[in-house]
């Protein structure tokens, strides 16, 4: 195993750890009990790096993003444990004044719904300039210049006219460009994109992804992409963390995770992507549904849906097993004690994915 612990070669421009989420626990206390939406999530994003959080609806990936921005309302929410270190400072311990400086200024967020993420009664220009005026220490004229160049950067034609327009005058793709312009206008160190393309047409999706990526590369900001689409992951990021039921269940570089998934859930996600090669075949799906957050199964949370599960999976939940440098999986298959099962799993994977 020792040679596997050598750090994988990194893309140029990727530096030290910028955001380090450690054992984050975000709970919601509601009428029926406590929902542990995020329960011990750890991952890190390097300066200039690109990480995707992947998972089904309800797996806690959006709550993780909102926790980083401290946009969880407490109560009913509660940060029950863990740390979110941004440049070494714990975001969870910051007072309101400091966290406001981080929001928008150091970490910017792009939301899922461009149709509703812009205020309908404010002009596009006012909305972009608002954050610039707060974070950049410029006057109104300077803010307008920054807004104009941001709009140019995101490929908006005739930006001077757009500044005076209201959101309802723009198409969905155009609005998402505006949201991206808002995000990049303050030169953030980290951009969180929460399903930035889910609400868009397929043709626009690609443009927006390319745009986010090119801006990320040019500005050197780190990117935390939240998505349920593994196709998007493969094209956009370097590293990926797969989440299930409020936990990280597998993480590593995109190549490693997508080509050699060490957790059956990731494999299930991969196999449910339609592709050219599978034309005419029945599309495989992961059986069952996401577990009820009030009644999580004992042992491995994916156990009841897992085609490879056996007794051990019910008896105890596996730890996040270290498989290499920045490569982990939460599955008993990776425990040396179950090498025989691992071999069978590998064989079936090799058979199905030549």
């Amino acid at each position: 195993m020792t040679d596997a612990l050598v750090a994988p070669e990194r893309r140029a421009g990727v530096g030290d750890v910028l955001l380090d989420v450690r054992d984050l626990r975000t709970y919601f206390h509601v009428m029926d009990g406590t929902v542990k939406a995020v329960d011990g999530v750890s991952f890190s994003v390097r300066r200039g790096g690109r990480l995707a959080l992947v998972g089904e609806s309800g797996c806690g990936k959006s709550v993780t993003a909102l926790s980083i921005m401290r946009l969880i309302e407490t109560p009913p929410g509660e940060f029950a444990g863990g740390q979110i270190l941004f440049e070494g400072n714990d975001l969870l311990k910051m007072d309101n004044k400091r966290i406001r400086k981080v929001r928008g200024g150091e970490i910017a967020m792009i939301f899922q719904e461009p149709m509703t993420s812009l205020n309908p009664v404010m002009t596009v220009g006012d909305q972009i300039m608002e954050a610039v005026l707060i974070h950049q220490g410029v006057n109104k004229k300077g803010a307008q210049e920054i807004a104009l160049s941001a709009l140019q950067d995101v490929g908006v034609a005739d930006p001077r006219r757009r500044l005076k327009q209201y959101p309802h005058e723009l198409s969905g793709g155009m609005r998402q460009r505006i949201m991206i312009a808002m995000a990049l206008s303050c030169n953030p160190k980290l951009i969180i994109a929460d399903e930035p393309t889910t609400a868009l047409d397929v043709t626009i999706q690609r443009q927006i992804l390319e745009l986010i990526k090119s801006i990320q590369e040019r500005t050197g900001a780190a990117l935390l992409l939240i998505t349920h689409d593994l196709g998007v992951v493969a094209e956009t990021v370097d590293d990926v963390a797969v989440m299930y039921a409020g936990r990280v269940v597998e993480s590593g570089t995109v190549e490693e995770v997508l080509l050699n998934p060490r957790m059956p859930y990731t494999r299930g996600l991969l196999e449910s992507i339609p592709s050219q090669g599978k034309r005419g075949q029945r599309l495989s799906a992961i059986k069952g549904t996401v577990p009820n957050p009030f009644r999580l199964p004992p042992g491995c949370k994916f156990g009841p849906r897992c085609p490879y599960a056996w007794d051990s999976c019910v008896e105890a939940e596996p730890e996040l097993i270290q498989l290499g440098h920045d490569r982990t999986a939460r599955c008993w298959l990776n425990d040396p004690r179950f090498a025989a099962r691992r071999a069978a799993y590998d064989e079936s994977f090799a058979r199905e994915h030549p």
Partner: protein
Amino acid sequence: MDRSLPPEDPPDERAVTEDLEPGGPDYDVQLESLSQWQIAWKRFLRHRAALIGSVMFFGMVLIAIVGPFILQYDYYKIPVPDVHVNAGRPPSLAHLFGETGRLQWDVLTLVVNGVRYSLLIGVIASAMGAVIGTIVGGVAGYFGGWTDTILMRIVDALLALPLLFVILVFTKFLGSGNWISVTVIFGLFEWLGIARLVRAVMLSLREEDYVDAARAAGIRDRRIIFRHLIPNALSPIIVSTTLGVAGVIIGEAFISFLGFGVGFDTPTLGNILAGSLGFISQGNWWWAFFPGMAIVVIVLGINFMGDGLRDALDPRAKI
């Protein structure tokens, strides 16, 4: 990987094409000319009752503003009564609305000056109510939790009081007779309904995505409430404030009629009516009729207008 959108040279054509809707290139241009308020204005102009109401209300406003300057008589010059007709004179060419008993005021002069102060009291008190109500309701609705509970219980408690009697007591202690103090007292009680209304609207508005987006951009709560959310809640506030003017005018007329409101040195429609009380039985109908009609015209005008505004500002209504 083919890069369909290099950032260095934004492909203008694509961005433009993306905007095109089936309507063709002109579509975008057309949209630009119709803001939210312009649409509302168009709807309002098509609303017949609203137009009639506006004519009634703004006609009275006009009379209140210019009337005192073009009238033949000055309210503040007490006429020398003609002892022979102590009971007042019916409408005539010289006095279109007749003359009062006792001091023989020109009723037209009374009504015009009364309209001026009644409107002033109504508009100022209602505007005060709108400002206080918007702030309290906005803060309560946005922050929720304890802030909301405390503020709304205060509102509930105040609403549980029989308002007119409280105002009667207040005016008695805090300088009855002075129209400004009466206005302030009405303003201090006018905000309750608006606070509830704004709170209710804020409760739904604060769940909007653009609130999260604004918070994620580091914008402080105060600015989110007053720059982002209140403008979105403006329609119900406008309607409620407009209707509030009518409420205050009637309320003021009521307490002045009872003699607890504005004193006779400042004419309001209420205290003019109060003055007529002893003379109606002598057949001086004009003394009560014309100020009464003025109240009816103003209040009806405001209510029609409020109805029209409600329809015009409702984004779901199609006319």
